[in-house]
C-alpha cells in the first residue's frame, strides 16, 4: 500500500509537469491587457477606426517641424538670442543629421503606420464580404490613409529633396534594409494589389522595385503619389471616397473639417500639381474647392471672418475656412510647442520671431489713400493727395493677430488712429505708426526701444499653459491665393489670340468675384475680407462693399514711401506683359505673407516662384535680406545653389 502511494504520488507529480509542458505556447505568449498586439487587432470596424485615429495622433507630432522648416528658412521668421543650437543650424542652412527639427523620423513614423494600415486593409480586404455596397467605411478609411501617406511624403520631399519611398509590402526591417541596399533592383516577395472593384492578393507576381527609385525626387514623389491619389482611391459620382463622414454619426460638424475629406484630397493634389508646374491639373483641383457651393457656404471667403473677425480663423474651426486642420486640445492632453518657440513669457523660450520684412508687409500697406494724377501719360507728375494720405497697417491681420510687440513683459497697446493723424494713447502701436508717418524718428525709436516682436498667431486667446493652438494645413484663403497665382500665369491660345487671366487673378485676391455663390452673401476675396467697409442689410446679408486698399496692377505701378506713403517713383510696364505677370505674382506672394504668415508654407512658395522664374536669386535675395551684413552675402551665395534649398539627409 505504502509503495503504491509512493508511486502514485510521483506519477501525479510527473503528470502535473507533463500538463504544464503542452501549454507552453500560451505560457510563453501571454496575452497583454493594455498593449494590443497586431494579431489581436482588426477584428471589427472600430479597431480599424482606432488605428486610423492613431494616424492623426502621428500627424500632430509633425506640426512644429513643418512650421520651423517652412518658415525659419524663409524671409518672414528669424531667430532670437534664445534660439537653441538646432534652430541656429537651420537658420544658417547648415543642418546636421542630429538636428531635432530636421529629423525625418516622425514623417516616416506616420508613413510606416500608414503602410502597416494599408497592408492590413489589403490583406484582410474586409469589404469584399459584401460586394453590393458601393462604398464601405473601409473604402473611406483606405482613401484617408492614402491621403495621409501622400501628404507625409510630399512634405518630406519638399524638405529633404530626395527621400526613400518605402512600400507597404516591405513589412520587415530586413526587407526594408535589403530593398534600400540592393545593388540594382529589388524583387519584393509578395505583392498585394488593391483594385478599385475589390481587393485581391497576388502572391505569385514578382514586382521589381528599381533602385533608382529608392530615393525619389520632388517630381518623382508627386508623380507617384498624385497618380495613387487619383487612381487608387474609389471615385463614386465624381467624388473621391476619402474619410469617414463622422458628423453624420455624432452630429458634430466640426469633426468633418478636421478629418481628411474630399476637399483636403483636392487641396493636396492641387498643391502637388502646382509644385510640379502642372497649372491645368492644379487649377482643376483648387477650383473644385473654390467653386463648391452648398447651403453652408463652405470654403467661401464671405463675411464670416471679415475685418476684426479675421483672427477667429485661429480660435475656432469652421467649415467655411478650414479644409484640413490638425487640431490640439490641452484638456485632451494634446499640446504642441508653438508657444514655447514664440512667446517670451515664462515658461516659454522665445526662440523665433518675425523678421522686419514680415512686419513691413503688414505695416507698410495703406488703405483709403488717394492719388492726384494730373496726366495719365505723365506718371512722374502723380502725387499723393495730402488730404487723403490714408491709414497705414493691416490692422486686422497684422498687429495683435499675426504678431505683437512686447515691452517689459507687457503687450504694446493698440491705440486708435484716425486719418486726421491723431493717435491715442501716444505710447501705443497707433502712436508708433503716427511717429513713422510723421518721420519723427526720435520719438519712434524711443518708443520702440527694448521692444520684442513676437509671432502671435498661435497664442491668440491662449493662456501660457494651453500650448494647444491648432495647425492649419489647408484653408480657403490659401486655396484662393494659389488660384490667384495660377491665373497670373495661365494663358492659352484661342482664335490665334492668347487669352490671359491676370485680371481674374486680381479679382480673386481683391474681392473673390470669380467665385460668387450667392447674391445675398457675396465673396470678399483674401484682400477684400480685411480691407473693406461693408454695410449689411437687415437680414445680415451684405449690400455694398467699398474696397479701401485693392491690389492694383497696371501699366504704371506707383512706388510709395513705406513710412509716409508719398509717391517716390513708378514702374512702367507698358507693353511688358511678362513684367506685369511677374509684378502681380510678387504682389500675390506679398499678400500671402500677410494672410498665411507662419503657417508653414513660405519657403516652398519662394522656392516655387524662383523655380518658375528659373531664377534662384529670387529666393536667395528675399531670404538673405534678414541676415546681418557679412553673413547676408554668404547666405545669398549659398542659396544660389538650389541644392542648398534642401536639407540633404539622404545623400
Amino acid at each position, binding site marked *: 500500500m505504502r509503495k503504491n*502511494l*509512493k508511486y502514485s*504520488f*510521483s506519477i501525479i*507529480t510527473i503528470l502535473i*509537469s507533463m500538463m*504544464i509542458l503542452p501549454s*507552453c*505556447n500560451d*505560457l*510563453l505568449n*501571454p*496575452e*497583454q*491587457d*493594455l*498593449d494590443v*498586439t*497586431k*494579431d489581436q*487587432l482588426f477584428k471589427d470596424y472600430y*479597431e480599424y477606426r*482606432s*488605428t486610423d*485615429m*492613431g*494616424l*492623426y*495622433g*502621428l500627424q500632430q507630432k509633425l506640426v512644429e517641424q513643418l512650421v520651423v522648416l517652412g518658415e525659419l528658412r524663409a524671409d518672414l521668421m528669424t531667430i532670437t*538670442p534664445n*534660439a*537653441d*543650437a538646432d534652430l*541656429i543650424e537651420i537658420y*544658417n542652412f547648415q543642418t*546636421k543629421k542630429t538636428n531635432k527639427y530636421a*529629423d*525625418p*523620423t516622425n*514623417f*516616416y*513614423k*506616420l*508613413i*510606416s*503606420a500608414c503602410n*502597416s494600415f494599408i497592408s492590413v486593409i489589403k490583406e484582410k480586404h474586409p469589404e469584399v464580404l459584401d460586394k453590393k455596397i458601393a462604398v464601405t467605411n473601409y473604402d473611406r478609411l483606405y482613401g484617408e490613409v492614402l491621403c495621409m501617406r501622400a501628404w507625409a511624403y510630399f512634405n518630406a520631399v519638399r524638405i529633404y529633396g530626395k*527621400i526613400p519611398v*518605402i512600400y507597404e509590402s516591405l513589412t520587415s*526591417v530586413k526587407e526594408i534594409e535589403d530593398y*534600400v541596399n540592393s545593388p540594382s533592383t529589388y524583387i519584393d516577395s509578395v505583392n498585394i494589389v488593391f483594385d478599385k472593384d475589390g481587393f485581391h492578393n497576388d502572391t505569385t507576381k514578382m514586382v521589381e522595385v528599381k533602385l533608382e527609385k529608392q530615393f525619389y525626387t520632388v517630381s518623382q514623389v508627386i508623380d507617384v503619389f498624385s497618380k495613387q491619389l487619383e487612381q487608387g482611391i474609389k471615385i463614386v459620382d465624381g467624388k473621391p471616397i476619402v474619410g469617414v463622414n463622422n458628423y453624420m454619426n455624432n452630429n458634430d460638424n466640426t*469633426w468633418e473639417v*478636421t478629418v481628411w475629406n474630399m476637399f483636403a484630397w483636392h487641396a493636396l493634389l492641387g498643391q502637388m500639381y502646382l509644385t510640379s508646374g502642372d497649372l491645368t491639373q492644379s487649377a482643376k483641383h483648387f477650383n473644385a474647392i473654390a467653386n463648391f457651393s452648398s447651403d453652408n457656404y463652405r470654403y467661401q471667403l464671405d463675411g464670416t471672418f471679415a475685418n476684426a473677425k479675421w483672427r477667429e480663423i485661429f480660435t475656432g474651426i469652421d467649415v467655411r475656412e478650414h479644409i484640413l486642420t490638425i487640431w490640439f*486640445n490641452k484638456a485632451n*492632453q494634446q499640446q504642441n510647442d508653438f508657444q514655447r518657440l514664440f512667446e517670451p513669457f*515664462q515658461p516659454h523660450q522665445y526662440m523665433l520671431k518675425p523678421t522686419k520684412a514680415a512686419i513691413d508687409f503688414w505695416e507698410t500697406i495703406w488703405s483709403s489713400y488717394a492719388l492726384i494724377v494730373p496726366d495719365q501719360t505723365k506718371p512722374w507728375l502723380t502725387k499723393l493727395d495730402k488730404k487723403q494720405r490714408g491709414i497705414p497697417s493691416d490692422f486686422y491681420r497684422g498687429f495683435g493677430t499675426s504678431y505683437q510687440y512686447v515691452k*517689459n513683459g507687457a503687450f504694446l497697446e493698440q491705440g486708435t488712429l484716425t486719418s486726421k493723424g491723431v493717435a491715442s494713447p501716444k505710447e501705443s502701436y497707433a502712436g508708433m505708426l503716427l511717429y513713422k508717418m510723421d518721420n519723427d524718428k526720435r520719438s519712434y525709436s524711443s518708443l520702440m526701444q*527694448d521692444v520684442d516682436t513676437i509671432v502671435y498667431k498661435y497664442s491668440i486667446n491662449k493662456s501660457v*499653459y494651453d500650448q494647444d493652438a491648432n495647425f492649419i494645413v489647408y484653408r480657403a484663403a490659401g486655396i484662393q491665393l494659389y488660384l490667384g497665382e495660377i491665373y497670373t500665369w495661365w494663358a492659352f491660345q484661342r482664335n490665334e489670340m492668347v487669352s490671359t487671366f491676370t485680371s481674374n487673378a486680381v479679382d480673386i485676391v481683391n474681392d473673390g468675384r470669380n467665385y460668387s455663390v450667392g447674391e445675398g452673401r457675396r465673396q470678399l476675396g483674401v484682400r477684400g475680407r480685411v480691407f473693406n467697409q461693408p454695410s449689411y442689410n437687415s437680414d445680415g446679408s451684405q449690400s455694398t462693399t467699398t474696397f479701401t486698399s485693392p491690389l492694383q496692377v497696371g501699366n504704371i505701378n506707383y512706388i510709395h514711401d513705406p513710412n509716409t506713403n508719398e509717391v517716390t517713383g513708378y514702374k512702367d510696364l507698358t507693353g511688358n506683359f511678362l513684367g506685369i505677370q511677374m509684378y502681380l505674382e510678387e504682389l500675390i506672394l506679398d499678400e500671402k505673407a500677410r494672410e498665411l504668415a507662419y503657417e508653414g508654407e513660405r519657403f516652398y512658395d519662394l522656392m516655387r516662384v524662383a523655380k518658375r522664374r528659373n531664377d534662384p536669386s529670387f529666393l536667395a535675395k528675399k531670404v538673405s535680406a534678414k541676415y546681418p551684413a557679412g553673413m547676408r552675402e554668404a547666405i545669398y551665395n549659398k542659396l544660389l545653389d538650389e541644392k542648398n534649398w534642401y536639407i540633404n539627409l539622404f545623400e
Partner: protein
Amino acid sequence: MINKLIPIGTWERAFLLIFVLIFSLSALQAQDLSLQDTILVKSNQPAKDSILVKGLIVSGTNAPLSNITVSIEGSAQLPVITNESGEFSIKAKAGDNWLIITPASDYKTKRVFVNNRSELTVFLTPNDLTAGDDQLTILSQKRNNKDMVASYFNLKTSDTYKTSAYSVDEYMQGKVPGMNVIRREGAPCTGAVTFIRGINSINASNQPLYIIDGIPMEKAGLFGSNLEGFAYDPLLGVNLLDISNVVVVKDPAITAAYGSKGSNGVVLIQTLDPSATQTSIDVDFRMGFTQSPSNLLPQLNGDQHKTLANEVLFTSGMPEEVIKVKYPSLFLKKTDQRYIDYQHNTDWQDQIFSDAMFSNINVKVKGGDAIAKYGLSFGYTNSDGTVSNTGYDSYNLRFVGLLNIFKWLRMNTGVSLNYNTAEMKESAMVKETSPILSALAISPLLNPYQYDTDGNMLRKLREADEFGISNPAAIINTYNAKNTNYHFISSMGFEASLNKDMILNTNFGLTYNSLKEQIFMPNHGMAHYYNFEAHNVAKLTNNYLLSLYNNTYLSYKKVFNKVHNITSSTGLNVLTNKYQLDWGSTMNAHENDQYQALQDGTNNLRRIGGENIDWNWLSLYENLNYSFKDRYLVTSSISLDGSSQVGDHAINTVNIAGNPYGIFYSAGIGWRLSNEAFLQNVSWIDELKLRASYGKTGNNDIGASNASNYYRSIRFRETVGLYPATLSNDALSYETVTQLNFGIDLALWGSRLRTTLEVFNSTINDMMMYMPVKSYFGYSYRPENGEQMKNNGLEISAFVRIIDGKSFKWDIQGNFTKIRNEITELKTEQLVIPIKGGEVVNMIGETANSFFGYLFDGVYSSASEAQAANLMNDKFVKYQAGDARFVDISGPDGQPDGIINQYDKTIIGSSMPNLYGGIQNTFSYKKWSLNTYINFVSGNELYNYVRYRNEQMTGLQNQSTSVLSRWQYDGQQTSVPRALWNDPVGNAAFSSRWIEDGSYVRIQNISLSYHIPNKFFGFRNAEFYVSVNNAFTFSHYLGYDPEFATSYTLAEQGVDYGQNPQSRQFIFGIKLGL
C-alpha cells in the same frame, strides 16, 4: 597574467600590501606550531585487508585534543576516544574508508578519507569557524562546502543585528568577494544596488536573482513611482534578522541551472531554519540614534549671496528699472514692510536635517518534534530619517513549517507577511520639492517663518518669494510623500523519497506585492510646480504584482564503491507574473491645501496612466556533480529556457513546437591536491583545491514587449487612436554571459586560515541595446541583440585567526575584487544615452555607460587669452574672459574646428569602481567581542549633480562658497567661471568640472558586545551590544557622501542627484534567549 589583465594602481597596491602583511604574519605564527607535525608524516602503507590507523587530533594551534570520538563510517565497530595527548588508533577495513571524528563540543565534526594512510594528523575546526564539511543548500540539495567547484561565497549572518543594514543586500556590502553593493541612500530602509562581477548588462537588470526559501524574488526596481529618487527594493520584505544563511553563487557552474535568470549571479537565502526540536525563543531589542549629517556643504552667507545675486542679474541685460520691479527683495529699504523678512542668516541645511531615532524588536520562536517543526518570527521596526519628517515603519511576520507526513513524504510550508509604510521626500532632481536642493538654493537672508507688521515672528510658514525657491521648512512640514507596501509570499512544497537515492520534490510559491504611493505637493511656502501652472498637486500611484511559481525536481544521490559520488538534480521551473501599474495626478485643488485627494483637483489638469504587463518563464534544468576518491570533482549544469520576453524567432535559440528555447550550460572541474599522495601527509593543509569552470548563462530581462508587434494608444481630439508602438524585433533574444573562472581554495590548520583566489573572465554577448535606426523606419531606436562587452577580474578572500588563545582571539577576514569592464563590440561608433544633467556613452574599448562630456580646462583669465583661443560654443557665441575653457578635441572632419559641440565630448569618467572590498577585524576576550568592519571602493568617478546645481551661478539661487573665487576681473586666475544669467555661453555644461573621484574608505561598523556568562534573569543566554555604524568615511568627494544610487538603472549609477546622505548611527541592543 593577472597583472597584465588588470593594471594595478597605488590604491590597489596598498591594499595588496595590507593583505600580504596580515597573512604572512599569521602564517609565520602558525608555522612555528606546525613544524612538529611534518615529522609525523609517514609514507603510504600498502593496502591490506584491514589496516590500523594511528592518528593525532589537534586544534588549530596544534594543541592535542583529548576525549574526541573517532569512528569508521558505515562500520559497526565501536568508536575510539583520543587520549590525553590527542592520539587514537582504530582499525579500518580498507584504505578507502572514512573516519568520522566527532568532538563533544567546541569543535566541528570532521569526515576524513583514510586513503591508505596508517598514520595521520587531523586538525579540527572550532565551532565558530567555517569548515570544509559545513553544508550548503544549493539547488535544494545539501552539499559540502569543500566539494564546491563553482565560485561561491557563504556569508555568515550571525552579526546582522549589530549593523544598521535593513535588507540583506545592504548587509552584504564589502563582505562578498566580487560583489559591489551600493547603498542607495541614508534614508531608512531604501535598499541597495548590487553588481556581481562587474556590469553584466546595459539595458537589462544587473541585479542578481534572489531566491528566498526556494521562491525567486521579483527584480528590484520593477515598481513604478512618481517620487524622484525612489526605487523599490523587494528585499525589504525579508527581515534581515530572520536570515540564517546566505550563499552567493557567482559562476555558471551552478547559475547555468537558473538559465536565463542566472547571468547576474544567484543569491540563495534561507530564513528561519526549523531544524531544532527543542523550543527556543529569541528576542532582540534594539534602539538606535542617527546623527544628522555632519559634513554639511559650505554655502554663501546672506551678504555674499546678495552680492552674487546682483552680479548675476547685472549680466541678464535687463534694464535696472526692470530688475527693481521684478526683484524688489534685493532693494528693500528699512522703511519697507518686508525689510525684516530679509535680515537673517539662516543655516538652512540645519533646518532640514535632524537627529533621528531607531527602534526594532524581533521575536523568533522555533520548535517542534519528530513529526512537525516550525519557526515563527515577528519583527517591528520604526526608523526615522535624518531628513526631518521622514521615516519608515514595518511589520514582518514569517512562519515556516516542516511536516513529516509519512516516513517517505514530507511537506514544507512558508508564509511571509510584510507591511510597511514610509514617509519620504524627493531627491534633488526636483528643485521645487527636494529638501536638500531647496535648502542649498534658498537665500540665507530669509527665515522659515513670517513676521507680522510689528516685526514679531509668526508660526506661519514663509511663502516663496520672486526668487522662486521653496521654503525648506514647508517641504519638511507640509510636503507629503507616503508609500505603503504589502508584500505577501506563501509557499508550499512536498518532498517524496522515491527510494533511498531519489527524492521528488515540488514547491509552489505565490507572491502578491502591492505598493501604493500618495504624494501631495502643497501650495503654501512652495515654489509652484510645472512652470507655475500648478499651485498644488496630488499624485497617486499603485503597483501590483502577482507571481505564481512552481519548481518540481528530482534529486538523486548515490555513492558507488565508496569512491564514486554522484548527485544530480533535474527539474522544471515555471514562473508567471502579472504586473499592473496605475497612476493619477491632479493639480490645483483649493489653495488652502486641505483637499489632497485625486478628485479634488481641477478637471482638465487631471492625468491618469498606467500599464499592464504579463510575462512568464519556463525552465527545464539539470545539475550533475561527480567526485572520485574525494580528489577529482566534476560538475555540470544545463537548462532549457522558454521566456515570453524573447521574440518568436529569437536568435541563438532552438525551436521546439513553435516556441524558441534558449540553452544555457556549464561545466567545471576541481582537483583537490591536498588529497593527492604527495600532499596528503602535509596534514596542516586542510584543503588545497584548484578549480576551473566555464559556462553560459542568460538574462531575459529584455522588456516584456520589445519583441512583439504591439500598438500603443495616442490621443486625437476626444478619442484615442492606436499606432504601432515600436519597431519591434521578433528575433530579439536573451542576453548571454559566458564566464571562465579559475579558483584556488586553501585552508590550513583546521580552517584557521581559509583563503580563496579567483580569476574570471566573462563575456556578455547579444546585449540588448536600443540601437539608432535609419530615420526611414519611422522610429529612432530598435531593440537589438548583438553588442558585446567583457569583464575581467580577480577576487581574493581570506579569513585568518591570527591569535587563537584560550581567552583572547584575533580574527581578520577580508576580501577584495579588482575588475575591469570593457565594451568590445558595438554596431555604432558611439551610443550616447542622455541622463538628467548630462550624458553617458558606450564606445569600444571603454567601460559601459561612461560619463560623456567636455574636458574642462580652467577659465579664460583675460580677454586676450579668450581671443587667442578663438573658440565658439555650439550657438556660435565666442568665449570671453571669465568663461570656461573647454578643450576643442575634434570637429565634423575629425579635426578641431574652433567650435565646442558634440564632437568635443569625450569620456570623462566611469561610475564603476575597479577595486572594492572590505576588511573585518574581530578581537574577542572571554565574553567580550570588539568588531570593526571597513569597506572601500576605488577607481570610480562620480557626477556631482548637486554641486553642478550649487556652483553654476546662472540664477538667483544661493551657491556654495567655492563660487567666491569666481572670475570677476580681467586677468584673474581662477578655475571658477564668471556668474552669468541663464548661462547662454554654456559655462556650466556637463564637463569634467563636475566629475569627481568617488573612492572612499569607510569604517562601516564598530561593535562591542558582551555575552552574559550565566543565566540572566532566567534567560537561556543574553548579550548586550553597542555599535557605531558608518563611523568614519575617508574620501575626497565634495558632496555629502560618496555612496548613493538613485535607481537600479545602470545609466544613473554614480550620479549624485541628492539622495539623503548616510550618516553615523549608534545602536544599543540586547539579545535574549529563552
